[in-house]
């Protein structure tokens, strides 16, 4: 993948530094010209730790000046999320609390819109936007593995093994999505649609990277995972039916039908076994787990709100 196009001063400075090999200008989150600028810059900096860019020297991943910029952007993003997402504690059992939060969430649903109303073109746009995450599905949470004790580690791997195809690359979820994209005539290349992804979608990606890459935020990473899985089975069914209505190819439909069944398992594992085992080891992470769940719901609602408003126009 080549570096994307800048969206403001901060992303321009970061991209310029990456492409030329120079030190970045002394920029901070407060210099960002908006959400798009901040989240693109942060997305690019995080991407250095995933697959990187063909036009950037791989050694820049650990460039201290770039890390300083990243920390400033992360801090601003985390403060905003902590300010906006304040889960009300429910009961003792963490799984019950997570399922209750997901059930109580009455935000707008893209899957419901796709099910009955979206046009072919709108669904193509949505798939392109979703590809920014689905082509690295589960990877951000994989950063958490070495930070866990035996109980939560084994529990997380039990879920991740299924996400990664149980040893069969043909069943690996991000590969299933790539096959769906290709069959649907969309570009299946990793990162192909980053320039088309709105700030809200980049923010969803960034939050998973931030929770995954900062050990301190491991509770939030696993709470986010639980809410993500717990809001997937039923919407995946609606997505599959909407894609069938619009004659999308079986490979693309198949990605979603796989998630109807897989995530009915994963939501139980994530909320009960994974978050449960994490809190057995580290009860003080409970608030972070619930924060992660709340952030997951919040950021999906923001993307849905943005796209549904755009489509209604």
């Amino acid at each position, binding site marked *: 993948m080549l570096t994307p196009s800048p969206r403001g001063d901060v992303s321009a400075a970061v991209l310029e530094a990456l492409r030329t090999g120079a030190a970045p200008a002394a920029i901070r989150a407060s210099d960002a010209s908006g959400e798009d600028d901040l989240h693109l810059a942060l997305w690019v900096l995080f991407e250095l730790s995933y697959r990187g860019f063909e036009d950037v020297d791989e050694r820049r991943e650990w460039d201290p000046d770039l890390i300083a910029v990243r920390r400033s952007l992360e801090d601003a993003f985390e403060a905003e999320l902590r300010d906006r997402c304040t889960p009300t504690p429910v009961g003792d059992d963490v799984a*019950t609390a997570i*399922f209750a939060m997901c*059930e109580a969430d009455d935000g707008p649903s893209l899957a419901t819109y796709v099910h009955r109303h979206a046009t072919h073109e709108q669904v193509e746009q949505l798939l392109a936007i979703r590809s920014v995450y689905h082509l690295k599905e589960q990877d951000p949470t994989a950063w958490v593995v070495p930070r866990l004790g*035996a*109980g939560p580690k*084994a529990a997380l791997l*039990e879920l991740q*093994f*299924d996400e990664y195809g*149980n040893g069969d690359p043909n069943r690996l979820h991000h590969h299933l999505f790539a096959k769906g994209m290709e069959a649907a005539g969309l570009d299946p290349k990793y990162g192909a649609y980053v320039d088309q992804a709105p700030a809200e979608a980049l923010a969803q990606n960034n939050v998973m990277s931030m929770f995954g890459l900062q050990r301190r935020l491991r509770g939030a990473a696993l709470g986010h995972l639980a809410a993500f899985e717990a809001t997937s*089975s*039923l919407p995946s*069914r609606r997505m599959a039916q909407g894609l069938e209505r619009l004659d999308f190819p079986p490979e693309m439909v198949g990605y979603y039908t796989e998630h*109807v*069944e*897989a*995530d*009915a*398992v994963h*939501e*139980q*594992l994530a909320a*009960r076994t994974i978050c449960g085992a994490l809190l057995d080891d580290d009860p003080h992470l409970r608030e972070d787990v619930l924060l992660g769940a709340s952030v997951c719901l919040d950021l999906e609602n923001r993307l849905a709100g943005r796209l549904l408003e755009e489509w209604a126009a």
Partner: protein
Amino acid sequence: MSGQEVFDHPDVVLCPGGPMLLRGDHVIEGPDGTRHATTRPVSAVCRCDKSAVLPWCDGTHKVLPEKLRPS
């Protein structure tokens, strides 16, 4: 002599209000005699009988009124 924890890791887990989790490989025979083999390390078998992909759970139990959810 070791103080290391022995973890609970049951083969079958009944989720309150939801499916039965099955660890490992199994073949499930449905009421009409059809056989369904598990394909994942852990499978979720529907207990509310309202799933559209029986014998597996598809999350439908979450939209049922409390009294129709499995105990």
